């Protein structure tokens, strides 16, 4: 929860309610809001004697007076759960007195809840703030929310999306969770409809939005040509403006189609290892469709794909994964591995040309001699589809050059050994 909030800009504060070291449970530099985090730094005596309310109350009062935040989130830790500290009462009391929404959340680590549950919990909480802050939901016709899209690393992606929507008279109310600040969550109810990547990730959020009278339409993660087209069709279908969007983006779509065709003609039939469940980063795009959101890109590019799922090695877990993949319409071969340390022999045995795995597996991929494309580094929409294929081509060219050079040097070494009647220096090396 701390990681997700630190990544969100806006005029809010977060109070970590517990001992000092609990403020060390996330990376403090990963987002814009680390300077808005506070901790009650409870001492052992305060904990043991139950004197936990006063430090929290004091911290809240001081920061609300000094910073005047639009909202404060109080995150209770494991110690607070252990004694079932009633910090919700303090939060409600301060909120009532100051008029600032203070949201108390029990974010202890004693429940092995899923990342998806955590993400849905936070986003549904943020979506509730519009009502809690008294901001009336003013419906904006032909405006839409996009929920669960990946982060846009390049501006041409945003421009392409806006061009397509603008041609149909549509406007984006908010793109959640990335590229939205707290103020955007305070107006999430204003859109006419929400388009959601993997609805199953967000049951609580969708219930909130539907209660506000919004239609919530499922869209794919737009990585690759096909998913991008499907997303645009879904938007066009809902607002009856598919033709206008298609016309506005016809050039972009044609460029992506040409790029895909040329890529397939050069590289079709190569083998890709795609890793799942390797990262705990609470990112909605990573979690979408159990991590299969990027798969269509590899399939449409002509790769033969095998999945590598990090998880317990027991047969019942394997059976669970098999059923889950089937329910998502995926019948690709898969291997379950408990620890990235185990990956090199598996990757080597599979003779893969490329591995799409969590970035922290770079060492394992290197040991297996397979080039790594870090997970979630692929970009969305037509412009992204072209860039993804450029990137893949570059990686594949490099590895092919290396492999050709290695094969050539192997041939030379063998030739050297036979000429000399013994091992050459190169062979000994």
């Amino acid at each position, binding site marked *: 929860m701390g*990681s997700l909030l630190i990544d969100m*800009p806006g*005029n809010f504060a977060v*109070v970590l309610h*517990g*001992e*000092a*070291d*609990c*403020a*060390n*449970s*996330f*990376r*403090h*530099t990963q*987002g*814009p*809001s*680390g*300077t*808005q*985090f*506070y*901790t*009650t*730094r*409870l*001492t*052992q005596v305060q*904990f*043991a004697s139950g004197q936990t309310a006063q430090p929290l109350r*004091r*911290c809240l009062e*001081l*920061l609300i*007076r*000094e*910073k005047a935040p639009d909202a404060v989130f109080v995150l209770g*830790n*494991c*110690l607070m*759960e*252990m004694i079932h500290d009633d910090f919700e009462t303090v939060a409600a009391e301060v909120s009532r007195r100051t008029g600032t929404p203070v949201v108390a959340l029990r*974010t*202890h*680590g*004693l*429940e*092995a809840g899923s990342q998806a549950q955590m993400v849905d919990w936070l986003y549904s909480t943020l979506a509730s703030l519009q009502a809690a802050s008294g901001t009336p939901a003013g419906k904006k016709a032909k405006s839409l929310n996009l929920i669960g899209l990946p982060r846009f690393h390049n501006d041409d992606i945003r421009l392409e999306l806006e061009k397509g929507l603008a041609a149909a008279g549509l406007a984006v109310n908010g793109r959640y969770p990335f590229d939205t600040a707290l103020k955007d969550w305070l107006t999430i109810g204003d859109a006419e409809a929400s388009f959601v990547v993997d609805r199953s990730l967000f049951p609580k959020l969708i219930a909130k939005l539907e209660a506000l009278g919004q239609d919530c339409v499922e869209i794919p993660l737009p990585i690759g040509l096909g998913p991008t087209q499907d997303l645009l069709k879904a938007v066009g279908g809902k607002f009856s403006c598919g033709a206008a969007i298609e016309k506005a983006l016809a050039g972009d779509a044609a460029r992506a189609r040409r790029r895909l065709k040329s890529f397939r003609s050069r590289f079709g039939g190569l083998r890709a290892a795609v890793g799942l469940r390797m990262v705990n980063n609470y990112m909605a795009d990573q979690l979408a469709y159990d991590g299969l959101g990027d798969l269509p890109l590899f399939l449409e590019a002509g790769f033969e794909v095998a999945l590598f799922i990090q998880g317990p090695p027991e047969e019942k877990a394997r059976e669970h994964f098999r059923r889950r993949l089937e329910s998502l319409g995926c019948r690709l071969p898969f291997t379950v591995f408990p*620890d*990235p*340390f185990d990956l090199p022999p598996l990757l080597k045995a599979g003779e893969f040309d490329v591995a799409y795995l969590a970035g*922290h597996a*770079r*060492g394992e991929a290197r040991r297996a001699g397979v080039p790594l494309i870090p997970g979630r580094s692929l970009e969305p929409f037509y412009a992204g589809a072209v860039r993804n294929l450029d990137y893949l081509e570059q990686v594949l060219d490099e590895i092919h050059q290396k492999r050709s050079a290695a094969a050539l040097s192997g041939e030379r070494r063998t030739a050297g050994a036979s000429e000399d009647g013994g091992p050459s220096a190169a062979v000994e090396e």
Partner: protein
Amino acid sequence: MPLSAEEKAELERFALSTHPFGRMTGVSMAIHAIPDAFLILHTGVGCKYKGAGQYCLHDLGRPSHHREGYTEVTDMALIKGSVERIGIYVRNWHKKRKSAFMAVASSTFLQMTGEDFAAAAAAAESTVPCPVACIPTPGFDGDLYDGYGDLSKAVLRRVPFKKTPPKPGRVGLVGYVFDRYEMDHAGNLQQLKFLLESLGLECGPTLLSGRPYAELMGLASCERLLALPYARPYAGELPKLCGRPVTALELLPVGMAGTFRWLADAAEACGVAKSVVEACVRKQRDYAGPQLDTFRSYAGPRLEARRTAIFAETPLAAGLTSAAVELGLNPGLVGLRDRSLGGKKAFLAALARTGVRAPEDLEILECPSLDQVRTRALGLRDRGALGLVLGSQMELSAIRSGRAYGEHPLARSLTVDSVRGRGDALPTVEIGFPSYDYHVLFPTPYYGVAGTLALAQRIMNVLH
């Protein structure tokens, strides 16, 4: 009603600090510094981010997650008792990794149950062919250096000092903080070796230095140990732990004056004649002097009267401040990023020991919050009074983010080791832990005379 000065100070104590790292991160980092060791974090789900996750982006030289496992205690295990998990995890992970040394660190809420984890670790030790240490890591107090020290002590306790005769002239080092397998540390360790050898001493193992556990046991053959200032939290325990003469050094060999004072202190501790030190100093000063003159003539006109801000843990901050004065960088603001290495008093004592005089108006903040760092730095910059920042990713990131994220022109233009633009860009040099944007491919120390020159080079690269 606006806050009074006292209330602001009170709020500052609640704010997220530039050094939020606790004992658990320190233990994890120390395990990472022993390539064949393994750490079991006996924790809930949330605590596992306090370990390898905190430095996996800092170290591109070696994956940190291979040497760490988690018991992931849930509420049910908490109720039923979690202690039994320790033996199971120790055995399973040893089977997979064949570690030479293992440690078990336990989190705050589990410590509060009163279960006997030390006994469980001891019982587990009898079932695997390697030592297993239990390191409690309650999070109420203590910082990274406390945890790093606790693990270092656990290793020292296993060094066979009593069974090994000391070798005359062999000196071991204790208290080196090795946080990544990159070439900044390789450079520093080379410098430490060079400095000791230039005194005619043999450099034994360094605790900890990225070397295997068995090699660390070689400390037993050292005649004497020198403790770097990072060993301050446990310096008093060292003589008893080691059974060898131990000298606690007040300084790091950082900056010219700092390096020369360090040499003199090490020489005195090891009975090396003053004339040897003087000869070393003369030689190195002759070598570096003209290059430092070049630096000053380059940097001076570019910085004009603007000040330098330095953020680092106390001993490194003292070294960098003395180096900054020597380089003509006019330090104006220092933030001390620790809670265990002596704070302002130790900083001033170390600085005084170098013989370098800091500006009288030098402002010193002890463990400042991210918010304060950002407010002070941007405030100075807006008044045209800040020309350079040396700091870790924590401070540099805070300066370019925060409440007015994206609004302040500096926040947009600031880059690490910034070479972009000449307008608002504030030159910065990323140094210390964590460094996410500065990585090192060839030996680039910040210790020793070579380190001073390397630092000057990095600064030259960002001053335009």
